[in-house]
Each structure stands twice: as C-alpha cells, then as structure tokens.
C-alpha cells in the first residue's frame, strides 16, 4: 500500500468465493410449471436457486417466482405445528397439538364418516401435483367427492381438447417452437406454462420469419411483445374463430387429405330429426363407423384403407333406414353460413372485419404456402409408409382466457376445429402433443362412485370422462350423487369436478350435507372461491343446534393462508424444498413434444419445525383408516416410510408405477419391477428422467404406428388403434338426444331445455350465460382478472421480494372509457356487479379493450393472513374481485344454476359484467369489503422490520479467476440471422437451449 494517505484505496475483489458447500437438484414448486432447479446450500441454508440447464422444462432459465423461492422457504407465514381450533371459525384462535393427536382426530372424524357413508367425506385439493395419489386415496376411502382445482381453473380447455383431439394445451401439448411460422395466443392468464412459453416466444421472435399474434382483451405480458395485438371483446373468441373458419372454408384453404386421414369428417351421421338415432354415427354391426365410398358407391368402414370417402352428400343407409350426411357437410353448412362471416361478427367481437379477413389469409398463407417437409420417413397406423413428414407451420395456444367463460368448452373446441381444418395438429410447425398424450377420445376411465357403501372402496377413480347419459353420476331420479354436482345433468362433462361449488352445496345440503370437509393447498377461504364474502359464511354458518353446517373441516397447507383460519384441524405441510414429490406420468408429468419425462422433488433442506409432507400424512391416515391399498393383510402400513416409499413401490398396474425411469435395476423404463435405488438414480440424473422419441415418432402421434405401439407399451393408450379427431362429438349428441326424450336415462324436466341447448355436437357460440341475465346498461363493462407473471400460479403472495414488486392491485381502464366516467389515474372507484361491490383504485391503460376493465388477482389479502402485518398494502389497498363474482347465476324459474359452463362446470370467472363509479371523497383511501383481522397462529414466526438475508452466506475466498465467457441468448436463432454469431448447437457452454430437431 502507498504511504500517501490520500491515495485511492484499491479494493481486492474476491472473484471466486466458495458460494456453496453443496449444490442439490430438485423441482421447483413456486408455481405449477415444474422447472428443474439447482439449489446452492451454504451452512445448511439456501444460498441461491438457479435453473438447471440440463432440465427439459426450463433449460436453465428460472422465472421471478422460482428465483424468489428462498423467501417462500423462510416465510414467516409458515405453519410449524398441527393446530386445533379453539375459537370460532375464522377467528384464527388455535392451540398447537402433537401430530399423534392430530392424526388420531382426523382418523376418528374420517373413520366415522367412512363407517356411515363414505360420501360424507369431501376431499378436494388445490394446486396439488400428486393427483394420482390423492384421487386414488379418495377411491380407496370410497368417496366420489374428490377433485382438484381444475374445475375452477381451466377444465374447459382440458375437456374440450380431450373430447376433440385427445389432448389439449399446456400439459397436453405445445407449439412446435422450432418450426412454427405463425403463432396465435388466445386470452388472458396465459402463463400456466411459464418458462417454456417464454423460452418459446423468445426463440420465435428472434427468428426473422415468424409472426406472433395475440388475441387478448389486455395487452400486458406476452401481448406486449406480439407482432400484432388483437384486442378482442371478452367471451367472443368463439365468434372470431368461426369467422376465420368461415374464410378458410369459403376459399377452400382446408387440408382435405388430413381431414380424411385423421378425423371423423367423412363419418356419416344419421339425418333423422326427432328420432332416437338422429345425429348418431352410422355404424356397422360391429360398431365401426361408416363412410360413403365414392369409388364403389357403397357404405364402407370409415377406417377402410381403400375407401375414397365422400365429404358432402346425403346418402342412403339401407332399406327403411334414415339417410345420413358426412360430418364435413355439417361443418361446412354451419360455418359457411353468413352469420359467421367477418362482417357479421366484427362489431360483436370488436375486431375490424378487414383484420379478421387478413388474419385468415395469413393463417392460410403460413399453412399452405409455407408448408414444411421434414426428411423423416414414418409409418402410419395402416402400415402405409410415408417418405417425409409434412407440416403446416401454424400453431396456437390458449389457457384460462377463453376457458373461464360459460361458453368456454365450445370456444376451446372451436379452436381445435380451426387447428384441425388446416391440418396443423401434431405436424411439423404446428401444435404437438406431449406424452402421455394423445389419448383416445375421450380417454378412459368413466367416473366411478355411483354406488357407495360403508367402509368400501370405489370400483374405480372418481374423476373420468363420461360419454353418454348412462355414465353420469346421478341417481335414478336424475339427481346429483356428488357434492359438487359434478357429472350431473347440470354439468355432464365436468371432467375435473366443481371445487368452487363444494362449500356452497355442503352448506345448503344440496344435494346433501357432509360430515367432513378435507382440503389441501386450496385457498377456498379467499382468492380461490367465487363470492368470497359469502363463501366464508358457508364455513362459519351454524344450524339451529349451534353446530356448524359444515361440521368438520380439516385443512393442510404449508402457510397461514386465509383458509387456515376456518379449519378445525390444520395439518402443516412442508415447503417445497423439504419434501419428496413425484411429477408422474400417471398424473401431470413434465414431458415435452420430444418425448416423455417425469421428475421428483427431493428434500434439499431439513424442516426446522414440526411439519410433515402432506402426501406422507395422507398415506399415514390411509393406513390408520385401514384403506386397502395402504394397508397390508396384517393391518400394518403398506408404505411405512411415507411418500418416497410409495413413489418407488406403488404399482398401478403390473410394472407401472409413479415414476417411469430406472425401473428394474435401472434396466427398464416405463414398465419394470419397482427398484429401491430408483430415487438415487433420479437424483444422480438431476431429479428427472426423460426419453427422446425417435425422429419417426415425433409427429403424427395420433396415427403413427411406431409411436402408438410405444404408447401402448407405456400404458398410455389401451391399444394401438389410431386416435381419430372428433370434430363432431357423438357423446355431445347423446346427451342432447336424452334431453329430447330418447333413451332410458333421462334428465329431470327442469334441466331438459338447458342440456338440449348446450350439447351441440359441433362447436357453437352463445353469449356467456350471466351476460344474458344481467342488465347491460346497469353493468356495461366486462371485468377480467389475471395474475402477474411474477406471481402466476404462485403459492403465497407473502413473498418478501415479490411483494416489493406488487403489493396491491389497481383496476385498469382504457383512458377513453375512464374519461366518460370522469375517472382519472389513482381515483378510488366502486366496482359493482349484480352480486355486490368492491372498492379499488384506478390505473389508466391504453392496452385495455375499451369495454373491459381488469385487475391483478390474488394480490388483495385478508388482514392477519400470510404472516403480513395489518398495515400491508395487500389488505388495505389491494382488492379482491372475487367478492363480486357470484358462484350462482341469477335466479330463473325458481333455481340458481352454478355460474359455470353448462357442459363442463368450469367456473365462469370471466363472464362478469360490472359498473365502475367514482366513490365519494370520504370513501377513498382503503378497500372494501374489509374483514376483521384473523389472529396469527400460536408461536408464529416473527415478521421482522428488516431482513438482511444472505449477509452471512458470502463464502470463503478461494482465489482464482475463471476465463471469461460471453453469452448470446437464443444463440441458434440469432446465428441464423446475424453474421459473427456462432451457432454452437452442439457445443453451447450454457446448457442446451438450442433447437432439438437435427
């Protein structure tokens, strides 16, 4: 050092500190996306979490939620011991109890219900990633009253896909990001597939020749980077899609060959109005559907290899039998009609007719003028050899935006119809399935549990896919068997149940009362319920004897969410870094279009409190209750070591277990004997397993002989028959026929007209139901919600870092709309619906459709919940729109239906119409409704005023300096456009973020 005291002191920067004692891999759970993470551990604490570059889901990247995992893991909102309620429900008055007592209590309550009538237990789970376990548990318990949160999330998307193309978006399939030229994204709340969609969009936009169109009433997030934003009016996407189809049909921009090979468009449908076979497929005596062969002029098996099927024309089906018409003719007739022309729909959808015509032309151009042909020979299901794989590079993605409307099922089906008509499903450049999809349409099984008996398991799984009235969960009088009225005449195809109706129905004892409500990781006491103010009253309401109308409520969560305060017994779960989990092919795996993949979570840190992983608790309860699958013959527990024991040793079929990788001594995947070292093998491999399908199985999976053989071996499909897209849905028609009086299983008269109206076998569009029942002038604006990307699907807005980004929400309004109401930025307004009103603050935004207002959901919180202080923005300025979204439609004919899609029971969150009005000066400043604060739990973690996390985790200086490496993101795509950027496909030092198609 220089002797001169005024000289600059030079800092010696430590370039290589030992940042971690150990780096462990596991799977993120900050949302539902299931990315691979590398957790850096220092002195037993979490130093840093980064994306795992080897992982198929996120390929090294990590979103804001995943990067904030440390703060969730150490959140003061964590529960730390089982709790027993001692005050009134909702007060938050609890005492801590030991696990033995908690489990005995739960076993007693649930055991009593099981001995009386297993239906008296309703078991519903939220953002549960272990549904193959929880559903199986319900089945072993013997209650049909089970579902996860799909009914209020996106079941329309899933069901419409499964009933149409045997797969859907997100977990079922993805755009061919490498090859697509035209990508359309529909609707708000698009971030389910968080990192993959971001990776995909980044690649797509970096290429020079692709276009990204976003159809969305709100221009945030992905819409902000779209090449074109189509600010559509909410709930009208179906009309917009039909107008596109209309244009494509009118100009014959249809892939007829694809339709003939892979769809039912040539199948004949009886044209016999008023009769019992009207609208059903013409079948031979073995049940095979028939088509008209133009060559032989005869009816032949629609699957015949030689037939030249007719697409149009009324045909005779035999002496004394009605005539029949092919599906395509019905499609063409409907959508060629002028009622679906761009001019006819433009005003209603809020998009100029010229723009609709242009977008149709662009789709046609990409599909037919930019056709792709990959030099990959493959064999279709008939044995026919193809030299190449042809592709139509148009792909689409949608999620809750089009799904969460009461017309969402049909809209989602309309979108699939559009994809299929241009031949872009599972082809190069189009939409691609992820294993285990595609499945047969719809996939087995049917919902089980029509008959329940004391202490007896169900004869199947409670969740399934009905195809005809006989499959419904109704009694002989047509009344619902399930507490949520799932699979009843009110919502026949409710493939994910209706979790949003459980509290109301159990309270109203409609169809009956229950004894025990058991929920996991579902904030039904707040942002996961419609009509929250009323819904919490269902939990606190008492009968004339002073007993709660919902007698017992057991809840498991890792955090002190709003719902915890209403539980009688709280089973504290671990954080995601403290647990075993499996992300299973039996459930919701992490596959990509390139092949199947599954994953595990391993505990990377030990819990510092008395908590247990819910899945292990569930297996323990199963053993205590003596449930068959969880108990040995001698009465001992079958999985004494809990969930990891189950993950490795449970078999759903011979050799088929929760994890597909490294079975039978690591020699087999898919099928093979359970192996004690399986989890070690997963850990060694970064906590995931993946298999890349051979090139010849990567596309046309629905009709690909080799792929179907493999899928059958893996247990994903029951046979190797092709999966034929059901553009016309015979199951839909069967329900309609029943409503018309045909068949032995009949709907109660009061539901007849509704079933007949909405069970159209072809996609249709109708005004969202609630919209038709409320006064348009009183409530002129559509109201939507979405979650910000940094909190999407995230469990816990208490996160100390994320809440510095967003701690309260405002209501977004277009400036022109606001001007009419004399509303300015930051004004406080009342937002009212037919259900009630909430108060919030306004933010003007030009990226909002003019007849729409919207806000961020699940930011507003109840005082006292989530370990937040009472002055937190979340519970003073943040508001919850749920308060004014009714779970029931307005009364009509003496009955209030659920505010849900009449086909699937999907919660119709986005049908909401509101009025916005400036509040009085003295009303400004705080949100309403406001609840009494819930008390914090006993021995809650302190909520510090200052956090200096990581101060002690800097690590020891090790000296040394690694050579510098630059980083060009989307390297492959950039290299295509820009000279001087190396492709480095093989030798990319930063993971594998390159195209996989060789």
């Amino acid at each position, binding site marked *: 050092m220089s002797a001169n005291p005024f000289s600059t002191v030079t800092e010696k920067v430590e370039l290589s500190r030992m940042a971690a004692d150990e780096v462990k891999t596991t799977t993120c759970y900050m949302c539902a996306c299931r990315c691979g993470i590398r957790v850096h551990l220092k002195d037993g604490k979490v130093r840093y979490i980064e994306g795992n570059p080897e992982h198929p889901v996120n390929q090294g990247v990590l979103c804001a939620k995943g990067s904030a995992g440390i703060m969730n893991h150490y959140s003061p909102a964590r529960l730390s011991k089982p709790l027993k309620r001692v005050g009134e429900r909702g007060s938050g008055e609890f005492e801590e109890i030991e696990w033995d007592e908690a489990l005995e209590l739960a076993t007693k309550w649930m055991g009593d219900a099981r001995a009386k009538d297993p239906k008296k237990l309703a078991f519903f789970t939220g953002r549960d990633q272990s549904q193959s376990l929880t559903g199986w548990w319900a089945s072993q318990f013997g209650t049909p009253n089970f579902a996860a949160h799909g009914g209020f999330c996106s079941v329309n998307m899933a069901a419409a896909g499964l009933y149409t193309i045997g797969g859907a978006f997100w977990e079922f399939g993805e755009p061919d990001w490498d090859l697509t030229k035209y990508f359309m994204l529909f609707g708000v709340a698009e971030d389910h597939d968080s990192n993959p969609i971001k990776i995909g969009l980044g690649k797509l936009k970096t290429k020079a020749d692709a276009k990204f169109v976003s159809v969305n009433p709100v221009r*945030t997030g992905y819409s902000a980077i779209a090449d074109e934003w189509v600010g559509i009016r909410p709930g009208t996407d179906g009309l917009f899609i039909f107008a596109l189809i209309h244009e494509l049909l009118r100009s014959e921009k249809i892939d007829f060959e694809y339709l003939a090979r892979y769809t039912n468009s040539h199948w004949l449908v009886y044209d016999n109005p008023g009769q019992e076979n009207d609208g059903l497929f013409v079948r031979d005596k073995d049940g095979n559907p028939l088509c008209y062969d133009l060559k032989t002029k005869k009816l032949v098996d629609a699957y*015949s290899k030689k037939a030249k099927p007719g697409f*149009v024309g009324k045909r005779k089906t035999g002496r004394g039998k009605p005539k029949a018409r092919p599906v395509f003719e019905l499609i063409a007739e409907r959508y060629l009609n002028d009622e679906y022309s761009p001019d006819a729909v433009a005003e209603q959808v809020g998009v100029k007719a010229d723009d609709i015509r242009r977008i149709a032309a662009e789709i046609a151009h990409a599909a037919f003028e930019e056709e792709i042909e990959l030099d990959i020979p493959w064999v279709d299901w008939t044995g026919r050899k193809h030299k190449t794989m042809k592709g139509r590079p148009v792909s689409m993605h949608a999620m809750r935006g089009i799904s969460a409307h009461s017309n969402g099922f049909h809209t989602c089906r309309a979108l699939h119809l559009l994809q299929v008509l241009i031949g872009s499903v599972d082809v190069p450049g189009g939409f691609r399935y992820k294993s285990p999809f595609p499945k047969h349409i719809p996939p087995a099984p049917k919902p089980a549990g029509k008959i329940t008996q004391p202490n007896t398991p169900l004869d199947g799984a409670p969740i399934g896919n009905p195809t005809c009235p006989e499959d419904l969960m109704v009694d002989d009088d047509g009344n619902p068997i399930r507490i949520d009225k799932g699979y009843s005449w009110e919502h026949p195809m409710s493939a994910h149940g209706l979790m949003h109706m459980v509290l109301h129905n159990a309270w109203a004892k409609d169809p009956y009362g229950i004894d025990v409500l058991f929920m996991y990781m579902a904030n039904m006491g707040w942002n996961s319920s419609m009509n929250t103010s009323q819904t919490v009253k269902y939990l606190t309401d008492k009968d004339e004897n002073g007993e709660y109308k919902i007698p017992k409520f057991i809840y498991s969560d890792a955090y002190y969410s709003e719902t915890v305060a209403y539980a009688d017994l709280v089973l504290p779960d671990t954080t995601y870094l403290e647990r075993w989990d499996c992300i299973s092919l039996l459930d919701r795996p992490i596959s990509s279009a390139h092949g199947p993949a599954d994953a595990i979570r391993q505990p990377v840190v030990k819990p510092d409190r008395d908590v247990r992983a819910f899945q292990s608790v569930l297996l323990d309860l199963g053993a205590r209750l003596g449930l068959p699958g969880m108990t040995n013959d001698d009465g001992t527990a079958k999985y004494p070591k809990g969930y990891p024991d189950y993950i490795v040793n449970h078999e759903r079929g011979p050799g088929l277990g929760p994890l597909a990788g490294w079975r039978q001594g690591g020699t087999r995947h898919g099928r093979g004997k359970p192996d004690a070292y399986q989890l070690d093998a997963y850990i060694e491999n970064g906590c995931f397993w993946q298999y890349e399908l051979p090139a010849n199985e990567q596309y046309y999976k629905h009709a690909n002989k080799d792929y179907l053989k493999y899928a059958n071996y893996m247990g994903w499909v029951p046979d190797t028959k092709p999966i034929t897209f059901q553009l016309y849905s015979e199951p839909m028609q069967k329900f309609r026929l029943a409503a018309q009086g045909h068949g032995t299983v009949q709907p109660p008269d009061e539901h007849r007209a509704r079933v007949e109206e909405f069970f159209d076998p072809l996609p249709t569009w109708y005004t969202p139901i609630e919209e038709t029942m409320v006064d348009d002038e009183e409530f002129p604006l559509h109201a939507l919600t979405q979650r910000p990307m940094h909190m999407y699907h995230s469990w816990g807005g208490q996160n*100390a870092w994320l809440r510095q980004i967003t701690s309260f929400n405002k209501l977004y309004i277009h400036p022109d709309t606001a001007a009419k109401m004399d509303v300015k930025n930051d004004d406080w307004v009342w937002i009212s619906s037919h259900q009630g009103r909430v108060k919030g603050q306004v933010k003007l935004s030009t990226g909002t459709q003019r007849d729409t207002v919207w806000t961020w959901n699940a930011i507003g919180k109840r005082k006292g919940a989530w370990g937040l202080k009472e*002055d937190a923005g979340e519970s003073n300025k943040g508001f919850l729109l749920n308060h004014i979204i009714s779970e029931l439609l307005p009364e009509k004919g003496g009955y209030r239906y659920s505010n849900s899609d009449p086909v699937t029971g999907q919660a119709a969150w986005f049908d909401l119409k509101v009025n916005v009005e400036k509040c009085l000066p003295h009303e400004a400043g705080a949100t309403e409704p406001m609840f009494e604060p819930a008390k914090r739990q006993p021995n809650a973690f302190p909520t510090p005023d200052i956090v200096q*996390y990581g101060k002690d985790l800097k690590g020891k200086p090790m000296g040394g300096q690694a050579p510098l490496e630059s980083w060009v*993101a989307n390297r492959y795509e950039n290299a295509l456009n820009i000279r001087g950027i190396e492709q480095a496909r093989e030798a990319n*030092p930063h993971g594998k973020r390159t195209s996989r198609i060789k």
Partner: protein
Amino acid sequence: MTSLPRKPSRVKLGLVIDLDICVGCQACAVNCKEWNTSGHSAPLTDINPYGAGQKGVWYNRIHSFEAVDQETGDSQTINFPKSCLHCEDAPCVTVCPTGASYKRSEDGIVLVNGDICIGCKLCSWACPYGAREYDEIEGVMKKCTLCVDKIYNETLSPSSRVPACVATCPVGARHFGDLGDPHSEISNLVKARGGFALMPEQGTEPVNRYLPPRPKQHQKSTDQSPRSLEHKDTSTDGAGLLARWVDKVLSA
C-alpha cells in the same frame, strides 16, 4: 474525487437487452437479488418486507409503460429493465470523495467498495440513470456488480459463470459479453439489431446497449388490411361450394 482508470480498459463488459422480447416477467430482477444478497456487496437489505412501506435494495428494476403517440393515439406496451450501464465516463466514480466508487481497469465494471463508502449519496445524484441503490441500514451505496463474483468464479459450474440476470432470463432477452471488442458476438448482435445507448446526450458513454422493439404489424390506425382470401363461393350459405365438394375424391 475519484479517478477513472488512467487507461480505459480494452475489455468493456456489459449487457445487451432486447426490448423486442422482454415480457416484463421480473425474473432478472429477482434472480439478481437472490445472487447478490450474498454477493460482493451483500446483503441487499429489505425494509418492512412484511408490512406497509416495503422497500429494499435491487440492482435491477423493470419499468413497464405504455408509449402513446399523441397524434394518432396508437400505443405500445414496453417493458424496460434497467440497471447500471457501466459507463465509460462514469460520473458516479468521478464524484466519489473517497474512492469507494470505482471502475475496474481490467474489464470496465463499475463497483462500490463498501469498506470505504461513507454513504454520502453524491454518486446517486450524479448518475443520470438512477442506477444506484442506497442501503439505509448499512449506510453504504450499492449497485449492479455485473456479478463480478459469479462470472469469474472457479467454484461454480461453467454454465453459472454469467450474470444472474442473463442466465435466468426466460425469453433470452439478455446478453453478456465484451462490447469493447467490435468483433465480439454481442457487438455483432448490437450492430445487426441497431442497438442503442440509453440517453447518450448525458455524455457518460454507457457500455450497455438496448435492442429496440421491432415495428409492430397492423397495429397503427393508418395500417391498411388489403389482404384477404379469394372466396370460391359468394352465396349466403355456401351452397355452391357444398355442391362442388360432393364428388371430391380423397384417400382416407
């Protein structure tokens, strides 16, 4: 006052941020916070993290705004991440009375030596970009280090040796490298995409570059929509087409 390196470094490490694909997801900001709260200038203190008035030290912040053309009313949503731009002529350095704020001669990274920072905040007044973060509890200034303790860190796997914000960016909107080398990959990227310096009129010669959003298609009120498909049938119900399709022969 503190001097900049007598000889500007040949290596000028910096970030290139693509505004065309930034979706405003906040991944970069949070991953940065996560790494750096145990990094060179640890911790990144948070104040009132569970109540009102929550605030903390963040090296990187994302601003989302709508750009509205006052004449036509056309608008666009922009997500704009901002952190230290590691200026060549960094006023935050020259203004520093203690030498705490300095620019590394090896690679051009601007750092704060927390040991001798007196928390006078002159640098935050001098920085035209507002890219300095004062830690009220520690009483020192903090800022983006370009993950100096990560990019050269021998104890990390090679794939981790990039700034946290870059490695984690899900869309691939962030690039890192030597902008002092006109032939480096990221310099080529900047050239090809018309990358620009932020507020060059401030004369600080920022090293970081932004890639501009590409023009939107069909979004301006003046855009025409001439393109449409040729209808093969103009009847109201499409009967002509149906008739035409009766004999259409295809292979199943």
